[in-house]
């Protein structure tokens, strides 16, 4: 049974390799890649159900028992993210079918999306920190290609910076790994946690922890987000949506694992630092979102605000805050994907990127306009939609943890999010229409259905938050009590 944990990693890789040989058969590529993602979503849902009843499951590759071998671990937290990521990817693929264009499809677009998702799922599932590095690299290499694919001037320029920054970040990851291995002599995450707890988290280990914090912050866009707005606004829309939904979230996942499981013992230093970084990220993100004149800038800075808000949950670290952060993480993956898809579609329809030059879209495309309105409300955290529960729980957590500054910044940022997105809504959707009936481009059916599907998920998560609470409670319990995780890995036997 536990063998199927490896499927979310292995199936995309195998399918991607097969798709490389089907270069000319675009229809076949579409069908296979879409079915693959649906299949992975189903598998991860089944796994999630199994974990609810049987507890954490793991697979030791080729029978090397932990701490010696590499292993995959599936707990509720990672499976929730795998599930969300797979669903969002399949919907982004649906959007890509009608918009990405034949030249991309023939240049191995689908294989690289599958490689990307393999890396993302692998990062979520692995229980070995060096394997995490490898999965990160799989994901990043696919993302390098996806940023540069198309080969336009600005794309190449931005992708070069993106690649160089990530190469340096990966280098720092290796440095951190070297020091970690030098200090605790193990790479299995559960075993690291146990060793760190045995010796107490001395200053040496805290330094290593801070090194990991820097590395994952670069990947997550926490404080070190200077590379993000440029590189996220150049690729085609479907790729942007995938990046905004998944890439920073993998960094956030790694931060949660590192600072709840491996280095939770010195929160005065590490968690305070995360709190300060989250606060500055929120403020800087808000400034960026306010100052932006084109919709890509506003949307990318909204990604950064989302990252800052989620990490308030980790910085506060109470049970309420952590479960709020998980809710918000899931919400953010879906809502950011939808936001970027809509923004890309707006640019496609009007040919403009500057907010003020667009006007009256809602007259031509009423459904499209109202879906934008919906995602705006969701991102702000208005009750019936998905952002609400997460924001409230993080808020309660911050009050419990008496962290009022972060509380204030966090909720002030919600208002800025509302303002920046409402500005787009008022300027671009309301007012006189600039598109005459003759020039009106149709929104492709595939794209429209992807909007509707994501909107339905957003409403479902908001209204049906109760149905998810079982999974999220389980995930929170494991994050709050690392001993559950450690025991499942080290004492579980085969």
């Amino acid at each position, binding site marked *: 049974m536990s063998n199927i944990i490896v499927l979310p990693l292995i199936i995309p890789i195998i399918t991607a390799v097969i798709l490389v040989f089907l270069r000319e058969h675009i229809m076949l590529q579409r069908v296979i890649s879409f079915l693959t993602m649906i299949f992975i979503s189903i598998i991860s849902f089944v796994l999630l159900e199994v974990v609810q009843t049987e507890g954490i499951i793991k697979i030791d590759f080729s029978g090397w028992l932990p701490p010696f071998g590499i292993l995959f671990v599936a707990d509720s937290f990672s499976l929730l993210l795998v599930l969300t990521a797979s669903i969002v990817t399949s919907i982004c693929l649906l959007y890509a079918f009608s918009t990405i264009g034949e030249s991309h499809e023939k240049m191995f677009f689908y294989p690289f999306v599958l490689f990307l998702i393999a890396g993302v799922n692998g990062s979520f599932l692995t229980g070995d920190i060096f394997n995490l590095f490898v999965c990160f690299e799989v994901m990043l290499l696919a993302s390098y290609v996806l940023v540069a694919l198309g080969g336009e001037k600005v794309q190449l320029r931005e992708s*070069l910076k993106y690649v160089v920054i990530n190469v340096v970040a990966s*280098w720092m990851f290796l440095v951190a*790994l070297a020091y970690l291995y030098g200090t605790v002599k193990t790479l299995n995450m559960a075993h690291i946690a146990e060793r760190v707890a045995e010796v107490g988290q001395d200053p040496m280990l805290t330094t290593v922890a801070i090194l990991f914090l820097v590395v994952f912050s670069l990947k997550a866009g926490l404080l070190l987000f200077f590379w993000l707005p440029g590189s996220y606004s150049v690729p085609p829309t479907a790729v942007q949506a995938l990046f905004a939904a998944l890439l920073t979230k993998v960094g956030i996942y790694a931060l949660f694992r590192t600072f709840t499981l491996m280095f939770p013992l010195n929160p005065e230093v590490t968690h305070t630092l995360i709190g300060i970084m989250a606060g500055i990220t929120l403020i800087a993100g808000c400034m960026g979102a306010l100052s932006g004149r084109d919709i890509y800038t506003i949307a990318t800075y909204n990604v950064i605000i989302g990252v800052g808000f989620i990490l308030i949950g980790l910085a506060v670290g109470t049970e309420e805050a952590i479960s709020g952060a998980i809710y918000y993480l899931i919400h953010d993956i879906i809502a950011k994907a939808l936001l970027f898809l809509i923004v890309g579609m707006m640019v496609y329809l009007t040919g403009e990127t500057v907010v003020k030059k667009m006007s009256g879209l809602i007259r031509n495309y009423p459904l499209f306009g109202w879906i934008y309105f919906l995602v705006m409300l969701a991102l702000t955290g208005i009750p019936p939609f998905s952002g609400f529960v997460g924001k409230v729980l993080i808020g309660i957590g911050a009050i419990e943890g008496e962290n009022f500054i972060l509380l204030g910044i966090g909720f002030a940022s919600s208002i800025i999010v509302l303002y920046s997105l409402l500005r787009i809504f008022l300027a671009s959707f309301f007012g006189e229409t600039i598109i005459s009936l003759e020039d009106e481009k149709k929104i492709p059916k595939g794209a429209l259905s992807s909007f509707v599907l994501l909107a339905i998920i957003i409403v479902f998560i908001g209204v049906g938050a109760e149905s998810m609470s079982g999974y999220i409670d389980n995930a929170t319990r494991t994050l709050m009590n690392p001993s559950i995780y450690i025991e499942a890995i080290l004492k579980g036997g085969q």
Partner: protein
Amino acid sequence: MESLMIVLVGILVSVGTYLVLSRNIIRVIVGTAILSHAVHLLILTVGGLKKGDVPLLSHSGGPFTDALPQALILTAIVISFAVTAFLLVLAYRTYVTNGSDDFQELRGMSDE
């Protein structure tokens, strides 16, 4: 021996950092390559240099040398090789398309 290695790592890191901070694309790429060599040596060193015998049960009874750092470095070398190859191709394409290999000129304005 370990101290000597660490000094070497330090030198490599400073050379790499200097190159990464320069404006020319090729220098930056060479810099990242040197940085990755430095970290491979670092992993080797923190794992402890040769302390015992080959870690094969049939060959000796121990104490054994830790074989894990080698495995880690091998993986890291493969990855950095792939990334560097990709980076070189990307740099060449950027040079051809944008007509410049100077990061200062590749800055780009946010609102162009």
